[in-house]
């Protein structure tokens, strides 16, 4: 059975949204998605999934606060404690069982409500082995960036190319919070933070919400939708322990992609995928992920970034949306935002960041520091 995305709704991303509560952000994104899909959530949606983590939300059981603002009261609803793409994968499975025809996936960030972000992230470290060491948890990303750059002999300059491209792409995206005309040399001159990462290598938090409406082929026909098909989904985790995981390569992304490619029957991803939206919450992650996904050969992503291969008019447009560096870090909503961006691209609705002639796109997510988990979705239009 084919499963497709028939509705997309997003709020703009902003560094803070004091005029909105997170419930209102969710409501706005949901309303837009339902209007886009032409569905009534109270009668035409069979299942709702929200992707959230208690500590980011500031609640003991965030699941309680999910239903009303997305139209899910007294309906089948659940929380996936994962990235938005994990939610999308679960919606895909629910529909594949035949029990559910139309599912809604929601993810959001109200990062501006978090007053102690570093403290929250630090609580993700192993409480016995790692947390007592102290220090800012982004050190984990610094260590990983160092391992990646060394093992692949990627020049540090290529990180500047990634940052510059994504911030500039952000200028073309009306939803992006951090679009800016950043010169490739500028990141290298910015303040050192978690060596080798510098201030501009790190995406800044943003608020925002994304909702996708997902439907079986039959339901899509009923809704007279022109779906973007979910050709494959995959998700995987490497070791949660910092000491035993693969730091140089993103093994979770490689395994997740293998699964998604198998379902999508993709043999040569670099040839068959027209555009990619990958996690770039630290600049090196974009390069590391492209290699893990088989979209660049090991050790070549950095040099290709310097050649402009990943720009909107390059051989493989990557993060045409501006990515997290350009749009902002929306935490568990990151992957769903990327899937939404791929949908807009494949529908031809991406405005001035539109990539020409794309039929197959990939969205990839990572669950941020300190996890080694992520998901992949391969989306396509036409047959």
């Amino acid at each position, binding site marked *: 059975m084919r499963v497709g995305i028939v509705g997309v709704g997003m709020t703009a991303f902003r560094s803070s949204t004091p005029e909105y509560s997170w419930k209102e952000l969710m409501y706005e994104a949901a309303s837009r998605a339902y209007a886009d899909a032409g569905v009534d959530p109270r009668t035409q949606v069979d299942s709702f999934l929200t992707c959230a*983590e*208690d*500590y980011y939300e*500031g*609640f*003991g*059981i*965030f*699941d*309680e*606060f*999910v*239903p*009303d603002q997305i139209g*899910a*009261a*007294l*309906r*089948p*609803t*659940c*929380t*996936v*404690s*994962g990235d938005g793409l*994990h939610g999308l*994968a*679960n919606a*895909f*499975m*629910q*529909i*594949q*069982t*035949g*029990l559910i025809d139309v599912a809604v996936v929601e993810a959001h960030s109200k990062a501006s409500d978090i007053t102690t972000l570093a403290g*929250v*992230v*630090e*609580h*993700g470290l192993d*409480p*016995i082995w790692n947390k007592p060491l102290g220090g800012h948890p982004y050190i984990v990303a610094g260590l990983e960036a160092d391992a990646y750059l060394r093992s692949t002999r990627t020049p540090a300059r290529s990180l500047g190319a990634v940052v510059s491209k994504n911030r500039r792409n952000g200028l073309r995206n009306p939803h992006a919070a951090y679009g800016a005309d950043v010169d490739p040399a500028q990141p290298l001159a910015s303040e050192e933070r978690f060596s080798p990462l510098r201030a501009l290598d790190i995406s800044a938090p943003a608020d925002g919400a994304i909702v996708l409406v997902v439907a079986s082929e039959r339901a899509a026909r009923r809704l007279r939708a022109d779906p973007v098909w979910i050709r494959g989904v*995959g*998700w*995987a*985790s*490497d*070791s*949660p*322990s910092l000491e035993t995981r693969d730091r140089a390569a993103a*093994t979770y992304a490689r*395994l*997740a992609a293998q*699964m998604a490619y198998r*379902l999508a029957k993709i043999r040569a991803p670099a040839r068959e995928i027209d555009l990619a939206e990958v996690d770039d919450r630290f600049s090196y992650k974009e390069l590391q992920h492209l290699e893990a996904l088989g979209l660049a050969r090991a050790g070549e992503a950095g040099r290709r970034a310097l050649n402009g291969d990943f720009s909107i008019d390059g051989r493989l447009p990557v993060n045409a949306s501006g990515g997290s560096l350009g749009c902002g870090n929306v935490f568990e909503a990151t992957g769903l935002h990327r899937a939404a961006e791929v949908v807009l691209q494949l529908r031809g609705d991406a405005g001035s960041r539109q990539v020409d002639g794309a039929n197959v796109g990939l969205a990839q997510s990572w*669950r941020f520091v*300190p*996890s080694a*988990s992520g998901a992949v979705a391969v989306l396509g239009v036409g047959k």
Partner: protein
Amino acid sequence: MIGAGMTLFRRRLQETGKELCYEAARMALDSAGLTLADVDAVVSGSAPDAFDGVHMKGEYLLDGAGGYRKPYVRVFTGGGTGVFSTIAGWWHVASGLADVVLVVNEEKMSSCQPHAQSVFAHIWDPILDRPLQPNLVWIFAMEMNRYMTVHGVKKEDIALVAVKNKRNAVDHPCAQLADPKITVEDVLKSEVMAWPVQRLDISPPSDGASAVVLASDEVIRKRRIKDRAWISGVGWCIDSTMWTDRDLYFPQYVARAAKMAYKMAKIGDPRREIDFAEPYDPFDYKELHHLEGLLLAKKGEAPKLTREGVTQRDGDLPACPSGGLMGVGNPIAATMGQKIGELFWQLTGQAGKRQIPHEVRTGVSNGWGDLMQYGSVVVMRA
């Protein structure tokens, strides 16, 4: 379902949550005759991260639960997780994406000092509820009171559930608060927490883990697995966040989830077609509430069934033959062991001293959680 396992429910200061997961996962795999290499995907279920004091608790538990380098995801529907994670496991298999799925639920409430109840101070709406400084016993007292008032139920009738379940739990090797000698008198004389809730009306917080193994019918056929029970119906439903806006005497959301599950299982008359139940019983009145929500009793009829012995292990509709949460303990998500695990053990004839004396072919269990708002229902058949 081809395997199940659960740890001893206690205050387990010696083990980390990862270790508890490992223990339960290992038992479930052993009972299924499989190893981790046979598992395609892992589903994790766990309730508030704040119990363990770990952000992204699912990621933390990952290696203990067997998720290393596998597709792994955590689902979280409050207290409903105890039954809901199995539903998520089911859709992994029923979608065709996985052939064998391991579901591991864990809770470690003892890390939370001075008492797990302090975490529940943070589950409320920060503007409307939190300034009132409510806690869980408080709102459940309101629900219990409403149920008693609407149907004219006596405290004595409700105490019978505590007595039954704590006695049933005597036969459960993992039980924390079993008591072969408990009487209705004991319950009625126990300390008043928030009227009408008394100490022995409440299940104890606990540490523990439980796990089940789900497999496709193809795997079961090929491997000629004999001890298996089939998931024939699943349903889940959430009600509005605004718990103050609903009549608490009846769990509408449980009824909706049950109807969804019964429709899938092609059950038209649940009272006649279901042989036994594991209703979620964190408080004794909840068993009655849920028997009605599961449409196994008419509204207000569950106390009568209890009084007449219908819900005893040898009755016509055994309820909580495991000993339930009241007797075995309540490590929130890990109660999968009594709810889902018990269905498996009863339906495969592996419940030992807890085995229902007459033949049972269809069982139902439900989870319940969030702000008196979540229902998850699973129907299983032999």
